[in-house]
């Protein structure tokens, strides 16, 4: 995220040249034309669809829709499960990121590649993979069922698992990057002063990389909130238990497009509120 500031700083000499050549406004405002046009196009491309959502939203029926118990149920479930998935991602992902950044073992590059796989995997494939692993008949799920009588599919836990599966890589990548950027000598100093490696991690490393964890957590949370494919494949779709907002949107689209637009709008507003609120506070500092 620091890269956001770098162009401004690095643009010093370049803007100087532009100023001489074409009399562009001085300082950081002087954007060269070949960057300005595609940049603005990109902005329009990313924002236009969202604008369309706002324009086409059935504002009049919105209050009625939003107070319906089904929508509340779905929104609540979405928020709770995305938060739980983020918690799982932090609890397991931070240690994994540390292992990837601070230890050396054969095949680490491969492991790192595998960790990011859920990012590029079609979510439906992720859902099927989860079913094959944790389903009632899956390679692990079979034993869960036989020994403890636990079946995961079609439960809220399955929603959290599906969301954590697709969201955790965001956190791991973010934290690993921060760890690599952080100077390991602080930890080493702590250990030479008698702290155990875990204490050093807890007291020195963790506070140092907190902004990175926060940034990763926000990304993971946002990804979990939008998760659709793996959820419907692994957790199914039952109101109040596994029907999250994205599922509700998809199903509403089947016969009530207006409702789908309204639901999308809600999801959009919630996402923007959280991303904007947290981004300013945490992510720019990372």
């Amino acid at each position, binding site marked *: 995220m620091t890269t956001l500031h770098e162009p401004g700083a690095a643009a010093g000499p370049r803007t100087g040249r532009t100023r001489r050549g074409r009399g562009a406004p001085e300082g950081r405002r002087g954007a060269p034309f070949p960057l300005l046009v595609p940049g603005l196009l990109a902005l329009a491309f990313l924002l236009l669809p969202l604008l369309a959502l706002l324009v086409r939203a059935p504002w009049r029926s919105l209050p009625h829709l939003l107070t319906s118990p089904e929508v509340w149920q779905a929104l609540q479930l979405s928020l709770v499960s995305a938060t739980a998935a983020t918690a799982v991602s932090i609890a397991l992902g931070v240690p994994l990121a540390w292992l990837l950044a601070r230890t050396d073992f054969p095949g680490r590059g491969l492991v790192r590649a595998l960790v990011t796989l859920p990012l590029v995997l*079609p979510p*439906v494939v992720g859902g099927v993979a989860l*079913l*094959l692993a944790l*389903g*009632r*008949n899956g390679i692990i799920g079979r034993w869960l069922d036989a020994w403890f009588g636990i079946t995961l*599919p*079609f439960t809220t836990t399955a929603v959290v698992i599906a969301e954590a599966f697709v969201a955790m890589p965001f956190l791991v990548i973010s934290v690993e990057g921060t760890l690599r950027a952080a100077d390991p000598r602080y930890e080493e100093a702590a250990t030479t002063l008698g702290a155990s490696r875990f204490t050093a991690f807890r007291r020195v490393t963790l506070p140092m990389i907190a902004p990175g964890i926060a940034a990763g957590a926000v990304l993971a949370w946002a990804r979990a909130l939008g998760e659709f494919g793996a959820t*419907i*494949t692994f*957790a*199914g*779709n*039952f*109101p109040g238990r*596994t*029907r999250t907002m994205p*599922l509700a949107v*998809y*199903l*509403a*689209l*089947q*016969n*009530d*497009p207006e409702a789908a637009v309204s639901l999308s709008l809600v999801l959009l507003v919630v996402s923007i509120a959280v991303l904007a609120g947290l981004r300013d506070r945490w992510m720019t500092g990372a």
Partner: protein
Amino acid sequence: MIRSMRRTRRMLQLTGAGSALLMALGACSSSAGSSGTAGKPEEPASARLSGTVTVFAAASLTESFTALGKEFEKQHPGTRVSLDFAGSDTLAANITSGAPADVFAAASPRTMAMVTGKKDTIGTPVTFVRNQLEIATVPGNPHGVSSLKDLTRSGLKVVLCDKTVPCGAAAQKALDASGLKLTPVSYEQDVKGALTKVELKEADAAVVYRTDVKAAGDGVEGVEFAESSKAINDYPIALLKNAQNTRAAKAFITLVRSAEGRKILNQSGFLTP
């Protein structure tokens, strides 16, 4: 969607290779469909069909329309049938927002009405097949499901299609008709989703179409139930206004409705209307 797109691409490659082969053979082979042109492929261009027919068909038609497409290309060398399979609602939405399709075969009159409502068809859609519900259970039917009522037993994990999609609406109709209340573990987004849960043995049973049970082969066991006759689904087919290849599209619809086409459709488990 992803699945259907991948399938379509593979299909395009297949049909592409197939039609190239057919064109190469065209000069020396006589074809059944185009009478009078046998042996002379360059004869009256007006009598010969050519080009691509783009068919948007409901996901449940995947197997039978793939076969029908191959049959059409065999009967009309030089043509290509490009098939796009997805949920009827998705396809209808694509068509009304301008997707370049020649023929639309929907899994329900409601989804077809989405297209006719926007005046995107030529003529009136006709029902070409019907589909009946069936219960799909895991192979061997270990829970001894023999009727719709059996699905309401507690402890049985049943999946239904969501009420917003045709198979779910039909299942609800059958349940209502017999005064049964059923709480499934999940309302799936389409019939294949429901079937998959049974194939993977995550659910004990699902209410799907006969055609899906047939397509799943040994993966599931089909159980017919009496109430299914109260919720039979009509499949309408129509020529689209935006058709690029109207003549070939008409010929394709004729093939679908012919005795030969019916045979292929019946093999997949569809009923004659």
